[in-house]
């Protein structure tokens, strides 16, 4: 739980689609329905709703979605 | 060796190409021919095969792997790029219409295999059967009856109809 608290809000949600295998985990467990799977790849569908909780990053088996930014974590 | 017909079915794991290979081989056997089917494996058994090969012949088949093939099916660009060179001059190439091909010295059929399965039939899983239909039409290596028979023998119970339709759609992708 410590982990998600640490994430600061200036972070940006980044998708690395080359690594995405479209499993759907991130989308299913995003508390804000920010994500959706289209053509077996994750898509950000509602970035404004994103609360940067980091759950998608934490559960993505392929490290294809994460909160990044200048001062990386 | 000249009456030996070598077929390579390629694409991504999960596209059912091993099953397609088995069905082709079984159809050939129904036709009274000899057949050998092989496939390639990923790390240990995982990963899944990305290609399946069939050799059909009237005689004994010795070397069981496909070298230069008479017919190549490629459902993805990657597969096509990797195997296109193994197709004989004047050989038959069946590719999904999403795939770009440069070679000219071959009989090329660019067909909406995946689209047919996904959009016409709404069952992506039957792309392999659509492809078999096309192969049947493009070559005459197995008879339509045997192939249809072999398909119905192998597909899961309850899916016979959709597969039959897929097969026919495949046949109809090539009109000559």
């Amino acid at each position, binding site marked *: 739980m410590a982990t998600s608290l640490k994430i600061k809000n200036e972070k940006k949600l980044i998708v690395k689609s080359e690594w995405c295998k479209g499993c759907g985990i991130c989308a299913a467990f995003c508390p804000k329905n920010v994500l959706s799977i289209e053509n077996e790849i994750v898509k950000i569908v509602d970035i404004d709703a994103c609360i940067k909780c980091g759950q998608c990053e934490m559960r993505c088996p392929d490290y294809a979605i994460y909160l990044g930014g200048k001062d990386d974590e | 060796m000249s009456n030996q017909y070598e077929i390579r079915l390629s694409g991504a794991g999960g596209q059912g190409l091993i099953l397609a290979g088995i069905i082709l081989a079984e159809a050939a056997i129904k036709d009274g021919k000899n057949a050998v089917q092989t496939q390639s494996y990923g790390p240990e*058994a995982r990963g899944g095969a990305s290609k399946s090969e069939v050799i059909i012949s009237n005689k004994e088949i010795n070397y069981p792997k496909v070298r230069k093939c008479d017919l190549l099916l490629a459902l993805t660009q990657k597969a096509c790029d990797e195997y296109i060179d193994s197709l004989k001059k004047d050989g038959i190439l069946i590719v999904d219409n999403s795939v770009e091909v440069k070679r000219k010295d071959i009989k090329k059929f660019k067909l909406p295999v995946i689209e047919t399965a996904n959009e016409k039939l709404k069952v992506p899983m039957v792309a392999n059967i659509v492809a078999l239909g096309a192969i049947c039409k493009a070559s005459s290596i197995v008879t339509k009856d045997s192939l249809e028979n072999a398909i119905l023998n192998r597909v899961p119970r309850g899916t016979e109809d959709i597969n039959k339709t897929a097969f026919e759609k495949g046949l109809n992708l090539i009109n000559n």
Partner: protein
Amino acid sequence: MMSNHIKLMQGNEACVEGAIAAGMRFFAGYPITPSTEIAEISAQRLPRVGGKFIQMEDEIGSMAAVIGASLTGLKAMTATSGPGFSLKQENIGYAAIAEVPCVIINVQRGGPSTGLPTSPAQGDIMQAKWGTHGDHPVIALSPSSVRETFDLTIKAFNYAEKYRVPVIMLMDEVIGHMREKVEIPNREDLEVIDRKKPTSGLVDYKPYRIEDGELVPPMAEYGGEYRFHVTGLVHDETGFPSNTPKVAESLIKRLIKKIDDNKKDIFLYEEYKLEDAEIALISFGSTARSAKSAVDMARAEGIKVGLFRPITIWPFLDTEIEQLAKKVNKIITVEMNLGQYAIEVERKACKYAHVDKYGKLNGELITPDEILKKIKEV
């Protein structure tokens, strides 16, 4: 129409079908690529014929369970590949000295160690004979086709039961995984040999007593009429351990002799276009298929070459290879290793013919073209 008996069958499947036809009623194994289908199909098939399947905790346990089951009278088998075959070695030696019939399938893959787990190889030829410590008997067979896998599995059981010896089937990934047209023979047409049971009285029963002129003692089963002791120690005809030099010598020599004296029965091989051959290829398993193609290709170019295909790998086909060497000028062994069978061939053939070897172990089946090239070189 495809008759009921004609099928497209995978090599590993044919192995199980052959085993069941031979009477296998017990299988213990541990999954390993590329042999796993043998376990899987056995799990499916055995309970249907009243047999037993068990997945053990490892290969050592599998080999042990197979020996245990065989001692109760069931025909028993295990299947594995390189790493598992290495682990089974200690207990294979046990089966050899205690004379417990069993069949061990090794679907060879690229070694050493984990190596190339999904690729074919023929790198365990020597291990099949020398993998366990001490001098000991084994029989090893190597099929070249799916149909032959079926037939040889039956033979493997027959030899195991007849000679009370572990029999090893050296398949390879190509043969194990390929599917091929097979015509399954009728049950009635199959020769199935069962182990010979003792007939002596209960009191003077000795589990390792040899009847006159025989080399293999009849075998009772746990749970039957006779009670007996079995050990992996050197033992006399009563089955109890003995340290006497004479007992030791005679036991081990008999174990070797029971195979050596029956080579005629055990020697299996195929000759292809050897009648007028000047060059003989020697190859087995999947590479023999490539070699056959190469023979045809070479013949088409007028080169007088033929193929000698050992089916029995161990005991070594000594007299046959010597014969062959006398007939041809050159021998080329073709195997997916660095020349293991070649060592034995050289030993028997070197006086009469030049022996050359072609070996490869890059995970790919040797092609006819490569062999043809080699033929032209020598």
